[in-house]
């Protein structure tokens, strides 16, 4: 098993920036996102031997992050901690310090999407996964993925407006 860990350790370090990005786009909060990545890394190391080395490590990790997030939301509900994504959507983390209106408007628009659409948009448009890979991460058929992606895109287009046409 430690052999399996050795195999993914280096690639995981390289993936960290993208794992943080995916988690942040999922949760909208930098602190939550990094906690989520930490949980996912710990889970990945425990299950390192389950990773199919013919598959993509990033996809595998995105799936683990997504499941960790679902668990987190669930257990917070059980503990009475209010961690509703729509609640969080107004709390855009400005940790980059960049007063970039464009960045803020994209983040705000993204935060308004239902979670399933946001995940699809994150995986395909931001992380560059193929439809098939994204559908696998989300455990849904490819047709469901494309319809969520299309609806997410449509909503972003409306929210962002002013895109070149």
């Amino acid at each position, binding site marked *: 098993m*430690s052999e399996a*860990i050795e195999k993914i*350790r*280096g690639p*995981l*370090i*390289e993936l*960290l*920036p*993208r794992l*943080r*990005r995916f988690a*942040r*786009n999922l949760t909208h909060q*930098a602190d939550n*996102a*990094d906690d989520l*990545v*930490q949980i996912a*890394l*710990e889970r990945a*190391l425990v299950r390192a031997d389950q990773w199919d080395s013919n598959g993509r490590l990033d996809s595998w990790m995105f799936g683990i992050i997504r499941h960790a997030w679902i668990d987190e939301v669930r257990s917070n509900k059980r503990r009475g901690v209010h961690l509703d994504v729509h609640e969080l959507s107004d709390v855009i983390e400005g*940790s*980059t310090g*960049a007063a*970039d209106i*464009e*960045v803020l*408007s*994209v*983040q705000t628009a*993204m935060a308004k999407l239902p979670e399933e659409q946001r995940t699809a*948009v*994150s995986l*395909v*448009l*931001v992380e*560059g996964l*193929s*439809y098939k890979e994204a559908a696998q991460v989300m455990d849904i058929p490819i047709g469901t993925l*494309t319809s969520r*992606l*299309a609806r997410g*895109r449509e909503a*972003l*287009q409306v929210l*962002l407006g002013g*895109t*070149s*046409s």
Partner: protein
Amino acid sequence: MNISNEVDDDTLMAYADGELDADQSAKIEQLLQRDSVAAARVAQHQALRSRVQSGLSAVLSEPVPESLLNVLKQHDPQSQADVVDLMQVRQRKSAINRWTTREWGAMAASLIAGVVIGMYALEFSPAQLVSEQGGALIAQGTLEKTLTTQLASANSGQAIQIGISFRNRAGKYCRSFAVQNAQALAGLACHSQNNWRVQMLTEIGSSNSGDFRQAGSGLSPQVLKLIEQQISGEPLDASGELAARQSGWK
């Protein structure tokens, strides 16, 4: 929703996302020539894609917290072994310096090895296009000249084709290019002081492979991905490209 009489929006979206195979893509490309509504829709899909990606990627340039690195480090019986990787992560903080000197060295070595094998088939070998200086690959010769002077509108008949020109997040101008060799190459270079640093140079296979369909615009999937990671805002249009050239890409 049907944007055009001939194609549904899901298909245009899939085309914009690079999901269609070569045959399907060719059909859509023909349609786009004559259907301006569909063409505008594809452009809209692509613009949204690059906008969303650049808007949601700020975290990539932030330093990775030690707490996360420690998770991976703690499982290491010989934690010294991680030092190189940690340094690589820190160097990755900058989206521009994505590759370390060591990786560039390895890439340069593999390019040179490729030259020996493929020389007879290449009008331009990688060694003619780039030289290694201090761990970076610098465009030289025809490639350097093409990047500096050629507009995408003047690609016709040229050995090296210019694809997309854009500004990266550091405000530097970058241009994708394709070299129409027997072994076609695609790449991306960004202007830095007085030279063009080649961020990526990759073989895109023979004309039989599906990847070749995009070679004319220098858009191999790998190059496209790199552009998406680095672009700030929209690609330059023809007048933006001209203005950038006039300003010496500074």
